[in-house]
């Protein structure tokens, strides 16, 4: 019995001995991609509430992709739901929605240079000057005014007829001193903001839930609605693509889709004379066209298109497949001749792109 007891004590000690673990801290990796010129950032949303958003970088010339560059360069996580990114004067601004933060990074080293924190639920950032930018929000009826130089919130633009709970302001484009914003979730309008007074001076009702906004070479705004969903108390309708004259702020054309279609991701090419969007297939249309093409630019081939961009220099079309939303998504690169040039895996739910 004593031997048994000694053995048991020994086993317990062994158990204690293997119980200690050390956390592995990340190491900061040095990047310097200043020589390569063109490059594409991909914001990978990650899974909501899991904090696994990442940033990828792709060099179209070398066809090399680097994943998790934010973590690798900074030894910390990007956050929860990376929504969008823009670049201004060598600094990339990455909007991380559910982390309430916008990170500023050096676009060559990917090192953080600063951050704007304590935002409600940021979606997009738009620069008016070095010292003034707007940040749109969801679940907030205000657009935040920030000083990017000081990383400070300096004010708010209140949006009328919008509560906090149903608040949604999204993408921004600028025409002169006016910034236009599409309001998406349980909304149906485009706002016109005077950047001198930071006031909403006009709004234009379009269809249900305009999802994106761009401005072409002729100063025409393009937005596409998703039409809501079945059973929504806000309504459910066939989605549409709208062409809006920025100067007069009036709808010039409405291109109707079939009821049940889910168009999204309106994008422009480099010369801003062609627009692209997703609707199961990838579609391309001249900005002066009178009707939507009969055939898609790239037909649906079993891939769940989630993100879309066009190389402003070559016109190559990049589309992101989120697959099952819990694995590394894949980006496909097609030439203007619809030839598959490259494909590469990035992070979870690649949702937005940003060209260097």
């Amino acid at each position, binding site marked *: 019995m004593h031997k048994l007891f000694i053995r048991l004590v020994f086993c317990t000690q062994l158990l204690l001995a293997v*119980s*200690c673990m050390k956390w592995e801290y990340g190491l900061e990796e040095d990047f310097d991609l200043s020589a390569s010129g063109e490059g594409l950032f991909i914001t990978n949303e990650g899974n909501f509430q899991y904090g696994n958003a990442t940033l990828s970088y792709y060099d179209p010339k070398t066809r090399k992709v680097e994943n*998790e560059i934010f973590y690798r360069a900074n030894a910390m996580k990007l956050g929860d739901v990376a929504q969008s990114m823009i670049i201004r004067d060598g600094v990339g601004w990455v909007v991380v929605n559910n982390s309430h933060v916008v990170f500023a990074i050096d676009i060559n080293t990917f090192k953080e240079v600063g951050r704007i924190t304590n935002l409600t639920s940021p979606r997009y950032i738009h620069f008016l000057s070095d010292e003034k930018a707007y940040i749109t929000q969801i679940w907030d009826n205000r657009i935040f005014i920030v000083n990017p130089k000081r990383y400070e919130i300096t004010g708010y633009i209140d949006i009328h007829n919008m509560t906090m*709970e149903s608040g949604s302001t999204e993408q921004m484009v600028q025409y002169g001193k006016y910034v236009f914003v599409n309001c998406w979730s349980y909304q149906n309008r485009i706002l016109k903001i005077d950047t001198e007074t930071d006031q909403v001076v006009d709004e234009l009702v379009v269809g249900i839930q305009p999802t994106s906004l761009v401005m072409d070479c002729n100063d025409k705004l393009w937005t596409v609605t998703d039409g809501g969903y079945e059973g929504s108390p806000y309504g459910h309708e066939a989605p549409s693509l709208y062409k809006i004259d920025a100067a007069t702020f009036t709808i010039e054309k409405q291109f109707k889709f079939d009821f049940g279609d889910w168009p999204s991701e309106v994008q422009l090419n480099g010369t801003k004379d062609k627009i692209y969007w997703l609707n199961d297939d990838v579609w391309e249309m001249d900005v002066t066209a009178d009707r939507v093409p009969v055939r898609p630019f790239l037909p649906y081939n079993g891939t769940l298109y989630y993100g879309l961009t066009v190389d402003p220099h070559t016109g190559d079309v990049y589309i992101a497949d989120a697959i099952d939303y819990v694995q590394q998504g894949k980006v496909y690169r097609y030439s203007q001749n619809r030839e598959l040039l490259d494909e590469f895996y990035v992070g979870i739910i690649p949702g937005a792109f940003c060209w260097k």
Partner: protein
Amino acid sequence: MRRLFKIIALLALLPAVAAGQGKVNHIIPAVVYGDRPMKEIGVQQTKLDSIQLKENISLSMADVLTFNSAIFVKNYGRATLSTVAFRGTSPSHTQVSWNGMKINNPMLGMTDFSMIPSYFIDDASLLHGTSSVNETGGGLGGAVKLSTRPAQNDGFGLQYIQGVGSFKTFDEFLRLTYGNEHWQTSTRAVLSTSPNEFEYRNHDKKVNVYDEDMNIIEQYYPIEKNKSGAYKDFHLLQEVYYNTGKGDRFGLNAWYINSNRELPMLTVDHGEATDFDNRQREQTFRGVLSWDHLDNGWKVGAKGGYIYTWMAYDYKRDVGNGNMAHMTQSRSEINTIYGQGDGEYYIGKEWLFTASLSAHQHFVESRDKNIIRQDGNKAVVGYEMARIELSGSISAKWRPTDRFGLSAVIREELFGNTLTPIIPALFVDGVISKKGNVVAKASISRNYRFPTLNDLYFLPGGNPDLKSESGWTYDAGISFAVGEEGKYSLSGSANWFDSYIKDWIIWLPTTKGFFSPDNIKDVHAYGVELTGDLSVALSKEWNLVLNGTFSWTPSINVGEPRTPADQSVGKQLPYVPELSSSVTGTLSWRDWTFLYKWCHYSERFTMSSNDITLTGKLPSYFMSNITLEKGFSFKWADISVKAVVNNLFDEEYLSVLSRPMPGINFEVFLGITPKF
């Protein structure tokens, strides 16, 4: 001696016990001769005893299952959602009942085990895989049976325990009992509160130090507090039992929960805790009335019950001057009416026939979001739905000899107006060797799980076209038990299982910005579960008990690739550990008891492709807790003092990405049981 098998039971070896902390008893290892119940022919189950359930008042059932069973507990943080899953399945594949009434949330399908104080449970059984068909349908992983029972006291009884712990945690437990030959009553109350602001090193973010020109001059990993994680949970349980002494027993169980919990901020949150209020509140009432009649060779019983649940989720932010505005204001109400009838009939000692029919009628109202419509009027995004859930079963159990038993169960379920195909289950067991009490068991079943109400109707995203999940499960196992009266007892089991689940329902994002469920995956889950129990009387005053579990649970996606780029086929499901194990050891001497608890989960994948990335890493971890208890017995009362150290080695670990977990922390409990 027919049907009598020598089984070794680990009868509580430790102090404190049936009545919980506050009373000290010593029981030495005992060899017990008892029936192998016919109702349990071929059944693979884990029974948790009162020692495990009543270890300390601050434990939830999630904590108890973590250290005492082979099932996986997914813990989102201290005093936050904890779900359990058997054998690589999902939490909604675990059916949970309390005193016979199903308590899975009909909207979500799962049960939050952090909301079940272990001190409120007197009996807990885990029915693995196939074995769940004996009790209910839909348990593709298994079922958890929780119940209360009469305290069997004579006269008045009182027990009070006060616990004080790290992070300003206070736990209080009070139980009043009264009993006589016919009546047994019990009132239990638990109150747990804590600001829950434990400190941890945040590896997921850094703090910037800027110079005057706003250049970063330093960065460091902050030691942060668990922000926005306060909780206040109150539970009240009233029980009344009446035994006529002539074969009839009546019972009333009523359980009220009032919970107010903040939802802790993620480790990657850069918001100010004071500017946000993220809170979940719940009020639930569960009541069951029961009647059982036992007679010579037969038994009938009936139950009626009611559940009311009100849940509120509020996410607010300060919009200036302390004015908190709602970003999200979600409410749900569930009313469930329950009824059940059971019957058992023996023909001789060889045959047992059972029949059961249960009904759960749910009325659900979900109000998820307040919006302004296009016409300027207010509207609510949500749904209202009612659904009846009927489950009926019949079984025949046959034991022609001591050494062999066979059982067949046929179950049928109706959800709304949709009937499942027949759910069949077949069980067999046999004694391979009486020496060593070696028993082999095997079973096979088909099972179905209906989509939950949210799966079907939630706005936005509910998918009314979902199919039921279905699966085949095969079990086989062997167990043994040996011992010597008063000296030692040793038992163990090894079980193999294999199950195929088709049309697994998963919620995925859509391009419209919301999530929607679909029948996405086919899964092959298989593996091995091992258990071992040893109790030894080391000397007259020294006793030792060791319990161990081990699980190897590959859970593999065997569906078709979702897109040509899909790398998930043939891979382990995310967040399902392939290996898990636990050991508890108790050493007692006179009125002293030392308890050591240890558990291990292997690395879990966070991606369906099983890629391990820097941002998606959930390393394996070990967890160790110890408890030292001393009992004092006075003429007027039994008193016990208990000290607990949780996370003994101050492990930095994660159960779920971005959810902080506490390091080493301490609790002290003082229990008193007056002698009237």
